[in-house]
């Protein structure tokens, strides 16, 4: 008994500093934010009023425009569009690049170049995106001009129809490196013998890809999906640096909306409501990821 107590006691002593720090810097602010979202600035209980205010504001969902008219549609819709386009493209591109560059000469160098996007701080990435799509100095409008696509030869971030898309494309450029690196690492764990056996059975490149590579990479892919989803839900810095959510809110996202509520409107209660909504979304992804990982471990 004494030995057991000593064993557990030592464990508790070691985790104590981490628990204290997490309680101060993570648990307390999270709980305080949650509480704040149910009160007004005067400290009066307002129930779900802050959530209703946020969710019915045109900056969150503009039902008078969505889906019949063009953007701006609101931050929630923009986040959803971001996920719908950015998630499959980055995951698939990362996987394809990882497979294609796996065995070729100079593959490691190309992978490093693609990974550079991950090394750049996202706030700098936002500035790069702004200039990348700028009519006067950007590569993208220049390419459009060169190929005669004059309809797209303008500053993409300045127009509501293209502002969000320019950010998503820029973000794909920056984030694909993550998916690529994870999948490349996953590829190295697939036993060679599986491919050799498939070749003996007469399997071609596509069959090997779909019946060996994709299923064997599934655990890695699920981590990539979860991390990418979290990145997309809380996307902030790119939007802040490139468009500030504009023009007219056409590239507004939830995190930026929360920032404006807190630091421009100085309404910390509304900002807390947005933070709580964001936390709920991230919790869903987080729980899915943890359950997936645990299921994988049991297997």
């Amino acid at each position, binding site marked *: 008994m004494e030995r057991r107590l000593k064993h557990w006691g030592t464990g508790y002593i070691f985790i104590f500093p981490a628990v204290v720090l997490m309680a101060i810097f993570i648990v307390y602010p999270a709980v305080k934010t949650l509480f704040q979202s149910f009160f007004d600035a005067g400290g009066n209980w307002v129930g779900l009023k802050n959530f209703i205010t946020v969710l019915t504001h*045109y900056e969150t969902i503009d039902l008078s425009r969505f889906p019949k008219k063009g953007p*701006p549609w609101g931050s929630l819709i923009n986040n959803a569009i971001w996920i719908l386009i950015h998630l499959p493209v980055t995951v698939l591109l990362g996987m394809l690049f990882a497979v294609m560059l796996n065995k070729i000469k100079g593959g490691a160098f190309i992978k490093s170049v693609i990974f550079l996007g991950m090394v750049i701080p996202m706030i700098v990435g936002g500035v790069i995106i*702004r200039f990348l799509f*700028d*009519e*006067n*100095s950007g590569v993208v409008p220049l390419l459009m001009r060169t190929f005669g696509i004059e309809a797209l030869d*303008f*500053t993409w971030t*300045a*127009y*509501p129809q293209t502002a969000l898309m320019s950010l998503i494309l820029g973000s794909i450029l920056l984030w694909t490196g993550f998916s690529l690196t994870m999948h490349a690492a996953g590829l190295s764990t697939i036993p060679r013998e599986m491919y050799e056996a498939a070749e003996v059975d007469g399997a071609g490149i596509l069959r090997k890809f779909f019946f060996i590579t994709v299923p064997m990479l599934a655990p890695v892919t699920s981590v990539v999906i979860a991390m990418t989803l979290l990145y997309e839900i809380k996307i902030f810095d790119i939007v802040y640096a490139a468009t*500030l*959510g*504009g*023009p*007219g*809110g*056409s590239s507004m996202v939830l995190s930026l909306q929360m*920032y*404006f*509520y807190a*630091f*421009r*409107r*100085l309404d910390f209660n509304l900002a807390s409501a947005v933070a709580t909504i964001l936390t709920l979304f991230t919790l869903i992804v987080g729980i899915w990821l943890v359950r997936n990982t645990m299921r994988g471990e049991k297997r």
Partner: protein
Amino acid sequence: MKRIVILLLCLLAAGTFLFAGGAKEEAVKPTITMTVPWAGPELEQFLPVVRAFEEKENVKVKCLTYRGEDLSAVLPAQFEAGQSLGDIIFLWDWWVKKNDQHAVDLTDIWAPVKSAYIPSPAEAGGKVVALPYVMVAKPGFWYRSSFFEKNGLKAPANWDEFTSLLKKIGGISGIKNPIVTGNGVGWPISDVTEHFLITFGGAELQNKLIDKSVKWTDPQVRKIFENRIIPLLKEGAFSDPVEWTQAIELWWGGEYGLYFMGNWITGMVEDAGDLGVFTLPGAKAMVTGQDWAFIPKYSENIDLAKKLFAFMISKEGATIRAKQGGKLVARNDISSSLYPKADQAVAEAVSKMETTVLDLDDSIGGDWQRLFWDQLKLLWVSPDSLDDVLKKLQAGL
């Protein structure tokens, strides 16, 4: 070899001694930290004031460049912790008024300069919480005199001449658009919009929009947009929004003919002597804005910070600042002849106006300011969204 080693050791010892001496001297000097909204040439124009104070008081003044947008995000947490980024902080007056519990009362340094000052201080809770330092004026459309001379152009005297000038500029080879639209967070577009509102609605309209007694959806406001701004946007008189410092280069390089900007542009071009400026014909008022500063309660050098602030707004400090140009000093006892040539023109343009008015979005501030900038950016590329924009501006108040 031995000699070389000894020599090196001696040099090392001497260097250490000198460095330590220098460091000691530096350490003895009290240091005042100031966050300023200027960088590059704008900051260079301010530094002579700081240097003069440093010499006078034998102190060190450190200037850190911070935008208001960033400070407003950092300061609330710092103030809650009883800390401050600077001893003097430049930030919007509306923000300081909203956070007056963190500001030192500046009544004692304001009182001696009160009679010589043009703008009023920011007051809250019965105390002076922030003071205006320098003034900026937004006189109108800037052009290169050499460009106008070369193409036989002249400043317009009425609206028809203005529109025909735009057409002439638009027809010049190499010109993308007659007017370049500055962008950034959005304030350059709001400046040009305010100039139209003041010209065609008078100073009274601007003041009523500030105190919210006139709605953005009011027919008078809508008419100015509909009859004056929207036709120009639809005709392509304005360019798409271009990052405002990049816009200066493009305009100076001859891709655009006119640029609406504040008087700080005089410090940002290669040859300020080649600058010309005209207001919209009929303008009787002009926006002037101020750079505001306050001293946070959590400064460790409140007395010294007050001393520096008092020097900056004194006649001596204002005289040094006026000579550098780029900004107008906020005192009425400084001769316009002290300014460099380009700034003299601005000072004279200001004096020709019947009145000056406050900057609209700076005065309202808060999240509405961000909304105003953002909605105007939308209007500039989508002029048909006028009604939607005006409705949102009104709803956001």
